[in-house]
């Protein structure tokens, strides 16, 4: 039972070959390149969505921050599509792996911090001290701000991992509960199944929301530092 519960999170390999690389590259097939002026419905909707999202997300940035537009848009598309594909039965979600999320979060966060330190050294160092703190509190507050700065990449990665993993685990557990209850009492099984449906709806929302949150936070860190 324990082995089965977490088996879906193991990195998939077929006959010893790691196909996790193929799984990570798969969502990109679902976003075709627009090759004409008027495309099919899928491409039109995707174009419209990307326009909407990019306009909303890049509105707060200045010229320098907008050079990150491609990065942010591909980030939100990748995390969103990967999360949504993970909701299909028997599928593997790469974003449940902490290794991958750390690999996304740390370079992006480090990029924003280094950009800030390089171009606006004084302003980015000034972020360590909020405005209007009384004099005796300053040393402690600097330490606290430093800790909160260094926790940002960890928080980004762990937030995404924990949310998606928890959602998948809950779906698995409640599905198992439904399975177990069918032999005992059909009504309770039915109620549990309803809970499962509601949970699935939540998971769809969470999948998209987590993508959005990740990208939004990266863009906020960027905004602070450009």
């Amino acid at each position: 039972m324990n082995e089965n519960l977490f088996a879906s999170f193991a990195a998939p390999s077929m006959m010893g070959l790691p196909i996790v690389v193929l799984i990570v590259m798969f969502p990109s097939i679902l976003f075709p390149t627009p090759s004409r002026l008027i495309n099919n419905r899928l491409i039109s909707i995707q174009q419209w969505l990307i326009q909407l999202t990019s306009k909303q997300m890049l509105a707060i940035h200045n010229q320098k921050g907008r050079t990150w537009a491609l990065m942010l848009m591909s980030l939100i598309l990748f995390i969103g599509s990967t999360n949504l594909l993970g909701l299909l039965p028997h599928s593997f979600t790469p974003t449940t792996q902490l290794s991958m999320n750390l690999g996304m979060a740390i370079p992006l966060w480090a990029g924003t911090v280094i950009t800030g330190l390089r171009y606006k050294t004084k302003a980015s160092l000034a972020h360590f001290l909020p405005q209007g703190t009384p004099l005796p509190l300053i040393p402690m507050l600097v330490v606290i701000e430093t800790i909160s700065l260094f926790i940002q990449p960890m928080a980004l990665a762990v937030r995404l991992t924990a949310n998606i993993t928890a959602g998948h685990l809950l779906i698995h557990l409640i599905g198992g509960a439904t399975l177990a209850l069918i032999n005992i009492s059909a009504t309770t099984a039915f109620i549990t199944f309803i809970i499962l449906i509601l949970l699935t709806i939540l998971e769809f929302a969470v999948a998209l929301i987590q993508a959005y949150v990740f990208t939004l936070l990266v863009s906020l860190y960027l905004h602070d530092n450009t």
Partner: protein
Amino acid sequence: SDGAPGPGHWDADAAAGGLVDLAVPGGAFSGRRAPCLKNPVLGPGVLQAIRIFHTRQPSLAPIPCVPEYGGKVCLGLIPKEFFQFLYPKTGVRGPYVLGTGLILYSLSKEIYVITAETFSAISTIGLLIYVVKKYGASIGEFADKLSEQKIAQLEEVKQASIQQIQDAIDTEKSQQALVQKRHYLFDVQRNNIAMALELTYRERLHRVYREVKNRLDYHISVQNMMRRKEQEHMINWVEKHVVQSISAQQEKETIAKCIAGLKLLAKKAPSQPVL
């Protein structure tokens, strides 16, 4: 590399940006165009790679049309061609029986195990089917509306340009028509000027006439005055001489006669009534 490429052949000139002669490996490629080919280890491999993978269509125009509807499917997954393929041997219900049999076989032999994941699959797939059935058409319409908006925008630009040009043509035509009617204006102006000239001429004529008449009148009045003066002079001269010629004796006699005559009249007068 023959001259004009055939319909299905790869137009090397158009495609890879001018790589013309593939028969000479590395010979016709300059380092400027394909620097990767200068590498002795990877050059031949790159050559073969770009020969195999068509990165572009063989000809640039015309591109094939996007089909208006997708392929027909049954149950949202299986193309209708499969049903057509099985029809001669198994009839209409063949594929359905096949599907049911496969499902029951995999369930009974536990090839497909019913686990917790089955229920999550049922809930996820059920939810997806519900959403697609309910909102699929409206999302499709929305996508079509996006395309239509794009086309309408471009069409509007085209129409605006056409309208602009049409307006310019109309303006030009009306201006040409105006130019045709310009002669009326010139006629009126010509008439005006002729009248003004005529007026001035007549005015001057009148003035000349007046001046001449003035001078002639002067001469006439001078003549008249001279004649009058002469007449008066003559009368005065005659009166003077007549008065001079009357002597004192004659004057006395004349006065005495007048008195006698008046006395006679005075005697006759009171016998007549006063009127």
